[in-house]
């Protein structure tokens, strides 16, 4: 029997559940391999482990084909939910795994949306679980196959049909399983994720006889846990890159806080500070009974000898500041600029992580560049002599300006080594100054003679000071 069919197989007409002989007839020369459920489960666990280290503090395999994760308190490191899911799917696709992802209030809803909504990324707003699952088929509810068949016989096709029915007769007819799954999808019944744990995970925990809830108390115990964790890390010579704080609440809900650092860290004060900055995101509810601190990603620390010198000032270390800010605004929003070998101005700058090694590289060229570059060049109306004179006047954002002085042209070529379309494309840049002394960076697409090099329209690209 065919157990799995990917896109290529489905295109060839294979379906899951089809007899193997039939498949072999449909596709001559089909290579048949025995299903290995144990190996599949192991691979899924490995994938879950990767997701755990990279994305969220609570992650588990959701067999046979899914991974469930609680992203609360973790998406900020990846620039929000949308960016996190997009990055996750890109990375999975890069290693040959087509995947779909959905974020929803509950495990049940997210499970259904990821599999049956037909979109690669779906983020449902809080409180919309019912509306989101209603149009999906009832198979999305994680029900046993026999139960689904029975429901279909009775004419239930969509989850919405089930939701509209009174619950009691349904339970009487089909047993409690149906009601349980519906409640789990809508968030009326709790469903816990049993998170996967790597074997050599460094973790410290503390349980409280009396649940704690006050921010100061949490902060105090975080401080104690960090000390223990750092001692454990020191034994192995490691520093932490991802640190998760899991708070098990009395009502059996786990709240997670994740902080990331740019370089491996084993500094008690710094880690405490990073975690305590996030205390306000924890909702203690009726109280927290277990606090758990895990070093999800730990890397060897390379300790450096510092030489005290009388002449040179030591270069102050700003990595702690970078970590604090990254955990506040998101790791992608704190960056340094680095030069890229391209003549096209908007492509000549790329963002690198703030703590990446200093290269000393800078932009070459003596032509002045404007401090403000417009997102996209804005079309301007000009009066200009072709081919190589600057405009006499131009109109930008409804204001006509007479050009008093101008410098140029500086001819910039496209990336002909990358794209065929840019083989002949050029831009002629001018620095112009108007009557009032305001200076602008404008360009003409094309060389002014040959229409193949560009449209010969003028654009304003930047503002000089």
């Amino acid at each position, binding site marked *: 029997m065919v157990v799995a069919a990917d896109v290529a197989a489905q295109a060839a007409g294979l379906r899951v559940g089809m007899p193997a002989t039939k498949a072999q007839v449909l596709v001559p020369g089909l290579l048949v391999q025995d299903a290995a459920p144990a190996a599949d489960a192991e691979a899924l666990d490995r994938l879950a482990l990767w997701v755990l280290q990279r994305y969220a503090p609570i992650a588990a395999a959701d067999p046979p084909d899914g991974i469930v994760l609680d992203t609360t308190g973790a998406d900020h490191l990846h620039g929000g939910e949308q960016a996190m899911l997009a990055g996750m799917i890109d990375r999975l696709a890069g290693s040959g795994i087509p995947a779909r992802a959905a974020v929803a209030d509950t495990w049940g809803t997210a499970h259904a949306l990821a599999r049956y909504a037909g979109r690669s990324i779906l983020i449902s707003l809080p409180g919309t679980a019912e509306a989101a699952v209603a149009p999906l088929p009832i198979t999305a509810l994680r029900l046993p196959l026999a139960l689904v068949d029975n429901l279909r016989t009775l004419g239930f096709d969509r989850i919405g049909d089930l939701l509209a029915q009174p619950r009691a007769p349904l339970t009487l007819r089909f047993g409690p399983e149906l009601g349980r799954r519906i409640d789990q999808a809508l968030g009326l019944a709790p469903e816990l994720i049993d998170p996967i744990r790597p074997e050599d995970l460094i973790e410290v925990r503390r349980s409280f006889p009396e649940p704690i809830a006050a921010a100061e108390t949490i902060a105090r115990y975080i401080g104690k846990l960090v000390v223990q964790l750092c001692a454990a890390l020191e034994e192995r010579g490691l520093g932490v890159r991802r640190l998760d704080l899991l708070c098990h609440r009395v009502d059996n809900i786990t709240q997670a806080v994740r902080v990331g650092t740019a370089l491996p860290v084993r500094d008690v004060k710094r880690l405490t500070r990073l975690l305590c900055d996030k205390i306000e995101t924890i909702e203690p509810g009726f109280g927290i009974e277990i606090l758990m601190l895990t070093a999800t990603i730990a890397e060897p620390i390379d300790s450096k000898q510092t030489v005290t010198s009388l002449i040179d*000032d030591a*270069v*102050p*270390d*700003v990595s*702690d*500041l*970078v970590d*604090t*800010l990254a955990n*506040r*605004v998101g790791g992608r*929003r*704190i*960056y*340094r*600029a*680095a*030069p890229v070998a391209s003549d096209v*101005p908007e492509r*000549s*700058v790329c963002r690198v992580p*703030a703590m990446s090694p*200093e*290269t*000393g*590289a*800078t*932009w070459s060229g*003596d032509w*002045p*560049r*404007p*401090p*403000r*570059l*417009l*997102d996209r060049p804005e079309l301007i109306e000009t009066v200009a002599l072709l081919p190589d004179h600057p405009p006499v006047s131009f109109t930008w954002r409804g204001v006509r300006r007479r050009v*008093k*002085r*101008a*410098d140029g042209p500086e001819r910039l070529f496209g990336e002909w080594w990358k794209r065929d379309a840019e083989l002949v494309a050029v831009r002629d840049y001018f*620095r*112009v*100054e108007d*009557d*009032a*002394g*305001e*200076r602008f960076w404008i360009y003409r697409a094309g060389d002014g003679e040959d229409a193949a090099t560009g449209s010969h329209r003028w654009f304003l690209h*930047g*503002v*000089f*000071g």
Partner: protein
Amino acid sequence: MRPEPAIESLRAQIEKIEGRSRRVKSVLPFGIAEVDSRLPGEGLALGALHEIAGGGNGAIDGAAAALFAAGIAARTKGKVLWCLTRPDLFAPALAQAGLPPDRVIYVEAGDDKTVLACVEEGLRHGGLGAVVAEIGRLSMTASRRLQLAAEGTGAIGLVLRRWRRQTEATDFGQPTAAMTRWRVSALPSPALPVPGVGRHRWLVELIRARAGESADFELEACDDTGCLALPAHMVDRSRAQEGWRRGASG
């Protein structure tokens, strides 16, 4: 003349009220005597907050003001934290004003409130040379927090005031706790014997200086080390030529 004891004690009281108990008041001179002589302490105070805005259209794009701030930051030591909400800053221009890309860490915050929090964090850290904030509204309370944070560590805080609309620029009249307040607007560049644009020229207005008086200067824009210069017609000829040879790039 001997200092009057009464005046001295009054001064001490005022210092105490202002909460400035810094032992050494270090400054960052502009290197231009005409400007430095107008500033208390002969230069921009380190460990203090300074406000910069653009004049005219510069209030919105803040191009000249950004270069002015970059020039100041370039002359400090250590890394520079640049907090902004609109990522339209073009790093090659900063490199031409003396701030190589390795020195500047950008933080792109969603709103003004986050910018303020990041700047305060940066000023409190102590390992940075300068912290630049691009922000629209700056309340007295917020500026006071930043000023205190800067006083604690000696980093220079530069607030680049930048508004979405011209009408909002009247906000610049509101008082803040900043040490000095500058307005930088573009002036026509000097005529050259050949067609072309000369070294950029700015009207730099010192609108407010704590314990000092306001003044206007006509200056030439930052060169590749972040230094400003006096225009040639205002100094003697030999100095002017030296200025030209140094290479005007901005």
